[in-house]
């Protein structure tokens, strides 16, 4: 204790001469650039996947219906829901912003909200108008700050040089570790489920991969899709186009994960896991066509205990998967395993039995309680351009079938394919393989009306085709199949396409006639679409049934105007394997419902 101790505190007096430090207007002070204030949501960008709700540890977020607001509608890839935040729960941790799959959710730097009604602190950002809606400052997810991996795990594949001279399957399949990492990327939002025609429980089976519980996964797969092994390889995977992860990164490899499950479970265990049929009911059903739709319906109905007979015109089951998809994409063995499994449920198969020739439709109607028509699309459409009747102008579907049937085709030196869809790619790549095997040189040209960005084929197919040295020329309109003096086909003459559709979105291509090319080819293959061969129905029945522009008219369940006849698959839905499975299921449900209804009437 000293005099200094008594005097020293008086230094505080110097503050009398300092500038005041008070903030003059604290009511309008702006928070910092990064401040985590009240939420904003770009509702146009938001897809309502609910990942924000899933991560919120406070249970502050509800997904609510906001239909009727402009820009928000339930559609594939958008649930039509939007997050509503309860500010009686929120802690402004911004995990919802960090995890947001589309980066639509952000935070402004606004922070003042006073109410005397506590129920007002709930609002739907972006929908309920707030004064901070257009504030630019505030927290946005920093670059590189991700709570889940944006990139897909690479699938092991054969290199183009290794695969081009054989029909060996290209894709190798994930290892357990790779699959687990890929499955880990899924945020379990489930917006893919509605997009999948057969509504496979995608998030659930992906979580089975994550847990390594493949038997659970297999059960989930087969409960919704008896063609899971095949779909695991060649599904058109609409789910992946709507995947929430695709907005800021690669979509989850849903198809490959499905394939992974089917590969991990030993085939011998399949039947035990899936479960056998119920006791016999005595009901009889005839199914025409052993493709995905017919066999799916057969699988469902046989498991219910009904007596199912399948009539197949060819010598193997599988339909388009067996005769239309090249082996490098789908080996025979996979198809056979799938078919054997379905047959093991008690389905009776009649191969090489063509309805209309070997057995009559009327006969089927008499012998069965229900008949299902699943005849697919086996007639290739033609371009009808001059010279298209030349014997070396083929339909892609016929050629593919011949290749898959094991016929030893002698590949042409050069070939032109007309069409930009998956079938066009398939035939181009199949013939390329034959050329490589037989001649060592590939010379395949693929022309299509569309430009490359609008090809109907899967982008992966296009990429792989280019890798396999297929010469793809887009925006070409075929004009004539040109033959030389000896009648030998020399190539396809084409014009440059200016537009494909007119103002009313009708098909009416216009060409630049000055830009003419001749694509040399000994063969020309038309791959521009297919239609059904309905001759088996017979004239009387064809007359009775209702038609819609050449297609059989059916209701949502696949029921035709005849009470005993259903139709399913490509012949009603167009070419798509998973849609065929979906129609197979709905027809089976519809037939089952009809049986129940009848039983109820009889009782």
């Amino acid at each position, binding site marked *: 204790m000293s005099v200094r101790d008594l005097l020293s505190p008086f230094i505080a007096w110097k503050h009398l001469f300092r500038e*005041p*430090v*008070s*903030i003059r207007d*604290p*009511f309008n*002070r702006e*928070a910092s650039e990064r401040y985590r204030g009240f939420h904003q949501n770009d509702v146009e960008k938001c897809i309502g996947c609910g990942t924000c709700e899933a991560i919120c*540890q*406070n*249970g502050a977020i509800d997904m*609510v*219906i*906001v*239909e009727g607001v402009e820009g928000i509608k339930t559609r594939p890839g958008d649930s039509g829901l939007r997050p509503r935040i*309860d*500010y*009686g*729960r*929120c*802690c*402004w941790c911004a995990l919802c912003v960090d995890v947001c799959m589309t980066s639509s959710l952000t935070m402004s730097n606004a*922070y*003042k*909200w*006073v*109410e*005397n009604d*506590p*129920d007002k*602190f709930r609002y739907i950002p972006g929908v309920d108008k707030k004064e901070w809606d257009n504030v630019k400052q505030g927290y946005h997810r920093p670059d590189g700050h991700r709570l889940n991996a944006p990139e897909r795990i690479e699938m092991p594949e054969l290199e183009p040089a290794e695969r081009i001279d054989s029909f060996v399957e290209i894709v190798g399949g994930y290892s357990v570790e790779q699959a687990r990492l890929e499955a880990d990327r899924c945020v379990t939002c489930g917006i893919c489920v509605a997009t999948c025609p057969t509504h496979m429980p995608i998030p659930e089976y992906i979580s089975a991969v994550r847990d390594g519980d493949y038997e659970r996964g297999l059960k989930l797969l087969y409960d919704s899709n008896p063609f899971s092994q095949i779909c695991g390889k060649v599904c058109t995977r609409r789910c992946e186009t709507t995947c929430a992860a695709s907005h800021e990164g690669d979509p989850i490899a849903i198809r490959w994960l499905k394939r992974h499950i089917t590969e991990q479970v030993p085939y011998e265990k399949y039947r035990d896991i899936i479960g056998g049929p119920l006791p016999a009911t005595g009901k009889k059903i005839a199914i025409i066509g052993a493709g995905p739709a017919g066999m799916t319906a057969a699988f469902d109905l046989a498991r219910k205990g009904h007596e199912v007979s399948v009539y197949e015109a060819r010598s193997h089951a599988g339909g388009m998967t067996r005769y239309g998809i090249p082996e490098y994409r789908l080996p025979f063995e996979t198809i056979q395993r799938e078919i054997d499994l379905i047959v093991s449920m008690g389905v009776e198969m009649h191969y090489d039995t063509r309805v209309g020739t070997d057995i009559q439709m009327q006969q089927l109607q008499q012998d069965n309680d229900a008949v299902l028509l699943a005849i697919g699309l086996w007639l290739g459409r033609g371009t009808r351009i001059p010279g298209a009747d030349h014997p070396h102008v083929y339909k892609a579907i016929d050629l593919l079938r011949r290749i898959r049937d094991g016929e030893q085709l002698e590949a042409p030196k050069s070939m032109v394919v007309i069409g930009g869809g998956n079938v066009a790619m398939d035939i181009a790549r199949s013939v390329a393989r034959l050329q490589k095997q037989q001649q060592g040189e590939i010379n395949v040209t693929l022309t299509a009306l569309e430009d490359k960005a609008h090809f109907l084929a899967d982008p992966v197919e296009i990429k792989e085709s280019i890798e396999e040295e297929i010469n793809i020329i887009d925006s070409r309109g075929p004009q004539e199949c040109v033959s030389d003096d000896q009648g030998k086909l020399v190539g396809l003459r084409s014009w440059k396409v200016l537009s494909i559709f007119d103002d009313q979105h009708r098909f009416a291509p216009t060409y630049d006639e000055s830009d003419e090319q001749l694509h040399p080819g000994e063969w020309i293959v038309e791959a521009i679409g297919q239609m059904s061969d309905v001759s088996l129905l017979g004239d009387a029945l064809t007359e009775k049934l209702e038609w819609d522009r050449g297609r059989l008219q059916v209701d949502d369940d696949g029921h035709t105007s005849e009470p005993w006849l259903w139709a399913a698959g490509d012949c009603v839905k167009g070419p798509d394997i998973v849609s065929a499975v979906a129609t197979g299921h709905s027809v089976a449900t519809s037939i089952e419902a009809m049986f129940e209804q009848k039983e109820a009437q009889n009782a």
Partner: protein
Amino acid sequence: MKDDFEKLLDQQPEKEPEPQERPALRDIPVREELVPRTVTAPDGQEIRIDPLQDYYCQAGPTVQTPAYTRIIEDLFNWARAESLWILGFGTGCGAIEMRPLMTPRFDAYRYGIQWRPTPRQANLLVISGYLSVKTLKRAIRSYEQMQNPKYVVGLGSCTINGGMYWDSYNTIKRLDDYLPVDLYITGCMPRPEALLQGFDDLKKLIRAGKAEGANKYAENFERYKTNQKRVIKDWDMPDYSW
């Protein structure tokens, strides 16, 4: 959806869910010093005391009616609004933003707002965030001991709907079940500027004569007590003491 939501809100008074009584797994013993006893004074006189009773100020709360003319009431309200004295009871984490508020940077004193250390001098109880059941008991007593007119401000999302402790076994969710709240400020936690904004809004309410929390408490005293006693299992204090 909005309609559904509004419907739900309309139904609220009748649909108020009754929390079910959880069976008690153990009895709560009465604390030793709270047992009624007889004390001998130095002069030999024996006095019977019951510590749970407050003999001098146990009458229930009463509704305070406005002054007989409008102009006087307005004058009163102006005076009340311009002297918000906050009780210095930091019930939860929000209390930390009170100190910047009361120091030179934000300087709430210039708006007539200041801290008081005792409920007797304060007219504004700020519930700064979540309330554990143990603190709720003290907060109720502190509130009741404050003099009329008095106001309650709920600070932070915890007071509105439980905030981030929505699933905690020890914190209440809705403050308005237990105390009459005049105003809520959301945030976790609200910045001093938001608090100032809140107090400013409270002033406007008071001037408009709409901050009637204390009267609401008196009018619905029974309901508040039932709610309070439902969560405070060891109610060892008078029902009301001021």
